[in-house]
């Protein structure tokens, strides 16, 4: 199957649309980094204004680690939309072009083609995430330096020592790859249902928005299904930044408050990926290629 994965990767590499997402991420991150570099102290003062009377913070609050956290909070909501731009076009775009019949009259089976396309879309997604990590984490570390990570949650603050932060980001990015692959798989499923490019992209984005609203609303009827919705779990990369404390309320270095929650989310997301891709294969095997 490797030759067809290579072909799919080559096509992604040659398509101008591929670079929109990379360009958009770079532009957003660089603009935010530039803004914070110029006016970051004022921003940090604004963040801290409620606790300045009760807490004295030494060191550099606005360091590369905090910048990365801010960027991920902003971007990991929007990156799925960029992933959908490619993943939701993988099958329907070919149907729209008419090239699906070129592929499906080769000796490779439809299942192999669909899986190869998903692997290629996944590699694209991972590369996008690596690009995001490079800009958001490494560039921020380079521009702003590093220090302890000080996070303000809704009703508590978290302070993670500098040497205990980096691996958490690695974990968060690995987790985010599951979230984004779920989006890619959903886009893929939508793509298998249509013969045009725009419909599946819009449908994927709409589905994410719809399920995100269901995940957010605190209504008893929706609470039953919430644990099983992929959107409930997509943002749980933040769990890597909640830390256990000992009896003296001191942070335990290297600990995560709720490991089980992360594991559960990864399992739910993996099941969704499997279901979405499996359904795509089934639909494409049954489909008459009329385009």
């Amino acid at each position, binding site marked *: 199957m490797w030759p067809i994965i290579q072909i799919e990767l080559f096509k992604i590499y040659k398509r101008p649309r591929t670079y929109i997402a990379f360009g958009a991420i770079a532009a957003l991150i660089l603009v935010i980094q530039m803004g914070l570099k110029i006016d970051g102290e004022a921003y940090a003062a604004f963040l801290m204004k409620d606790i300045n009377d009760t807490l004295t913070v030494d060191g550099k609050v606005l360091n590369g680690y905090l910048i990365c956290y801010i960027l991920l909070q902003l971007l990991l909501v929007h990156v799925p939309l960029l992933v959908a731009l490619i993943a939701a076009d993988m099958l329907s775009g070919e149907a729209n072009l008419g090239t699906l019949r*070129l592929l499906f009259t080769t000796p490779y089976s439809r299942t192999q083609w669909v899986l190869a396309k998903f692997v290629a879309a996944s590699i694209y997604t991972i590369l996008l995430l690596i690009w995001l990590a490079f800009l958001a984490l490494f560039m921020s570390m380079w521009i702003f330096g590093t220090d302890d990570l000080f996070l303000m949650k809704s009703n508590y603050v978290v302070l993670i020592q500098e040497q205990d932060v980096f691996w958490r980001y690695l974990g968060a990015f690995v987790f985010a790859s599951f979230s984004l692959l779920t989006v890619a798989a959903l886009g893929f499923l939508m793509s298998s249902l249509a013969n045009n490019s725009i419909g599946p992209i819009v449908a994927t984005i709409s589905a994410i928005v719809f399920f995100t609203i269901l995940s957010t609303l605190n209504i008893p009827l929706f609470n039953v299904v919430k644990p099983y919705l992929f959107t409930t779990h997509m943002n749980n990369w933040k769990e890597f930044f909640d830390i256990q404390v000992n009896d003296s309320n001191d942070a335990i270095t290297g600990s995560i408050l709720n490991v089980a929650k992360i594991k559960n989310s990864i399992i739910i997301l993996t099941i969704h990926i499997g279901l979405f891709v499996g359904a795509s294969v089934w639909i494409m095997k049954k489909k008459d290629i009329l385009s």
Partner: protein
Amino acid sequence: MSVIKVQGLSKSFGALKAVDQLSFEVEAGQVYGFLGQNGSGKSTTIRMLLSLIHPTQGHIEIFGQSLSDNRSAILEQIGAVIERPDLYPYLTAQEHLTLFAKLRKQKITAAKIEATLAQVGLLSRANDKVQTYSLGMKQRLGIGIALLHDPQLIILDEPTNGLDPQGIADIRQLIKSLSKDQGKTVLVSSHLLSEIEQIASHILIIHQGKKMAEGPKSSLLDPNKTIVQIKTLDDQDAKQKLIASVYQSNLLERTEGLYLTIPKLEIPALNAFIVSSNIDLVSLEAKNSLEDYFLQLTSTF
């Protein structure tokens, strides 16, 4: 030996029966012409031969093997251009051929790719993106992709679409050469009946998904089976007189007009019979080109 053997092939899309109990055989080395009006079921049949569309009913054997059981092995030996030459606009001709070369079991060398580009007349534009190509150039690249792996069976659906006269002549020559010099089997459909007439050795005509006629071109254009169209002032009266005569078995069933199939040499006798029977004859016309035959079969039912 039959390269393609189709038995009782049907395909329905909801209530529409696109192909209805179609059976035919294509022998090795033949150039098999597939004729039919738009919507007659040609492309649906070709797509079923390439496993793009699942048949509702029927059986397809290619190279003596069931298509449903041996799809991969069969498609390894087929090259096809289906309707429009749809390609990737952001890739060059060279990149297209290089990509599709990877999909074949046998190693396709760079020299073979270059030879194929030359064969379809795209060598000078090999490194230009397809989005800059004319329709004819795209069609030629599509044919290049189909021929790249030296397939035994070549299926071409409307291969001369969009080509200029020289391009059409080149493709015609190429198809003849593939069959005559290389022993390839070619199934070709076209709306240009004159094209089929010039290149095909055997012809299948379908209409509304059903087989109308099949056989060697020489038999379809057999002077012993000349189609004669008779126009009269009173077709009903003329028809009754013909039914009551020796020409009853020569009458073709049509909803409109009067048609008979008779040996060309007997046309004068038919003419004499019409005159002696006091049929008010307006015209009597012998149809012996493939186009006439095709139109007779498909337009008057």
